[in-house]
């Protein structure tokens, strides 16, 4: 457990027009740890990730990377810092093969000529490290791969880059039992290698299987960020669905006015969240 987080966000606000999607969000990811980011649909998980990766500019708040304040103004800035995101829609090129996809944008070269053998070897080593055994050939087009294989290629691609922080958006959502276990093993291994890993997931089993910390978003607010060992399965579910659980989460005092269905009352625009 290192003292300074690799990435720390303070007071992040983000609105799309009148809809405030993130309000005063604090978030930290530590090196060597898996931080699970949980929350219901529309809680702002994807928006937060896109702010971190520089796709969306933030309205307010500060970024600290390795303790230093930084500004992320685009995906390139995030990549320069060593932040890699594996998106749900895997962003692979169907008409290229596995090796070509893994090295896309940073091909190994001899002079101006692509160094295919080196790239193929590195790709083979990386995939071997992930215990990938279902891929027939590294030279097959990505279009011929199954969902699980594509996920593995996408993660392996993020690992190949000299990344310090890897964000995985629902990496196991489309996978079968065995491949889910493999991907989680891989997620754990990334953290054990000293990377900071952020895992977005809906699956509580996955979250508790690999994460060191759990951060829960509820309607755009960070309601808790605690160690996984200090929280139970049902508490996390309560945080996700109601925004509080016992002493954790939003203050329990009922706000004046709306008393409706337990939706957190301090939120002036709950109806605006689609």
């Amino acid at each position, binding site marked *: 457990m290192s003292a300074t987080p690799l990435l720390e966000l303070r007071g992040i606000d983000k609105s799309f027009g009148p809809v405030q999607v993130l309000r005063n969000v604090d978030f930290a990811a530590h090196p060597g740890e898996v931080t699970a980011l949980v929350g219901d649909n529309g809680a702002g998980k994807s928006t937060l990730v896109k702010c971190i990766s520089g796709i969306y500019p933030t309205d307010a708040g500060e970024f600290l990377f390795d303790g230093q304040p930084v500004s992320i103004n685009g995906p390139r800035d995030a990549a320069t810092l060593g932040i890699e995101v594996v998106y749900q829609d895997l*962003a692979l*090129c*169907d*008409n290229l093969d596995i090796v*070509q996809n893994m090295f*896309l944008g940073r*091909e190994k070269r001899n002079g101006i000529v692509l160094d295919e053998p080196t790239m193929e070897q590195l790709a083979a080593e990386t995939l071997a490290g992930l215990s990938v055994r279902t891929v027939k*050939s590294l030279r097959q087009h990505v279009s011929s791969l199954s969902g699980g294989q594509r996920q593995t290629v996408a993660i392996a691609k993020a690992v190949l880059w000299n990344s310090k922080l890897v964000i995985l958006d629902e990496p196991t959502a489309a996978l079968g039992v065995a491949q889910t276990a493999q991907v989680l093993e891989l997620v754990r291994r990334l953290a054990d290698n000293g990377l900071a890993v952020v895992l977005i997931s809906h699956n509580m089993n996955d979250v508790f299987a690999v994460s060191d910390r759990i951060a829960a978003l509820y309607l755009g607010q960070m309601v808790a960020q605690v160690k996984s060992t200090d929280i139970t399965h049902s508490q996390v579910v309560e945080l996700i669905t109601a925004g509080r659980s016992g002493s954790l989460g939003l203050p329990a005092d009922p706000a004046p006015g709306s008393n409706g269905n337990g939706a957190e009352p301090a939120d002036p625009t709950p109806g605006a969240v689609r």
Partner: protein
Amino acid sequence: MTTTAVKREGPAAVAPAPTVGSHLHNYWRRVRGGDIGALPAVGMLVLLSAAFSIARPSFLTAGNFANLFTQGAAVTLISMGLVFVLLLGEIDLSAGFASGVCAAVLANVVTVFGYPWYVAVLAAVATGAVIGTLLGLLVAKVGIPSFVVTLAGFLAFQGIALMLVEEGKNISVRDDVLLAIANRNLPPAVGWLLAAVAVAGYAAVQLHRHWQRSTRGLLADPIAVVLARIGALAVILGVAVFILNLERSRNVLFTSLKGVPIVVPIIAVLLIVWTFVLQRTSYGRHVYAVGGNREAARRAGINVDRIRISVFVICSGMAAVGGIVAASRANSVDPNTGGSSVLLYAVGAAVIGGTSLFGGKGRVLDAVLGGAVIAVIDNGMGLMGYSSGRKYVVTGIVLLGAATIDALSRRRAAATGNR
């Protein structure tokens, strides 16, 4: 929690080393899976050549064989540039008249202003590059669909060509070097030398790759297959050079006419250069990536706009080269240079060769093979005395057939998960 994952060590690909048999088997499986590559073009080429040879024996003479190259050269060169644009799923309808404008610039510089040929060639290619940059900027930066931008270019360039040759008068090209491009032949010995260099170079590249992959423990094609490829190239080039080196003058005492036409090595060099760029450089890789999945390419840090602009520059630049060859062949430039069917033939050549109109799939070689098919149709039907009307209809049907094969093979590939 699931714990069924079995730990398995070892490399990702542990398939047995391929034999000749398994190589052929894999190839056949890819073809059946919809990855047909150049098969339709080669098939059509063989079929059409056989049909025309039977119908008109004069089709199969050395003289006509040489004619095929000079007739198809301009369209093939324009088509080679179009492959880059098609790889991104874009289209350049203005390439034909862009080549006309560049040819008009060439003729003006060399004939009207009297500069040497190399200044004229540079000016023509530079004109092409400027046209391409303009088209690319409009498509990539302004965001107008390439179909519309180049349709506008099609009209505008037609007008510019008309203005450059002063309302319909044609400008003759009398420079010896420029005329030689499409009208003269290499000395027979030089033809043999170039063929030998080409085969040796191909063999060196193929054997080096085989050796490199084998020593690194990567799966390599069986050596027999590699040698067969080299042998096939040697046979094809050998036969072609032999036929082209035959005497094809009607009256040998009056003038001797033999050797490889000079356009052939020009096409060959450009084919090698652009194939190298597409297959062996990261620029080429990025072109395929942008054509396959633009968003993925953008996220990989590829400057998508720059790639999109660059393919239009290459396309118009190659159109300029095609225009130069057309001017050389006609000995002059008129407002219709690069007009009429040139553009459609060029697009057709790329598609017949196997380049997909949907982007992401294609090779420069496709343009050459498809250009050969079109040249054979044009030439063969001309020999049989058919009218231009019938030629256009047949070429249109062949193009439609190629596009159908493209669409069907994509569907087949989608069904078998190949693409």
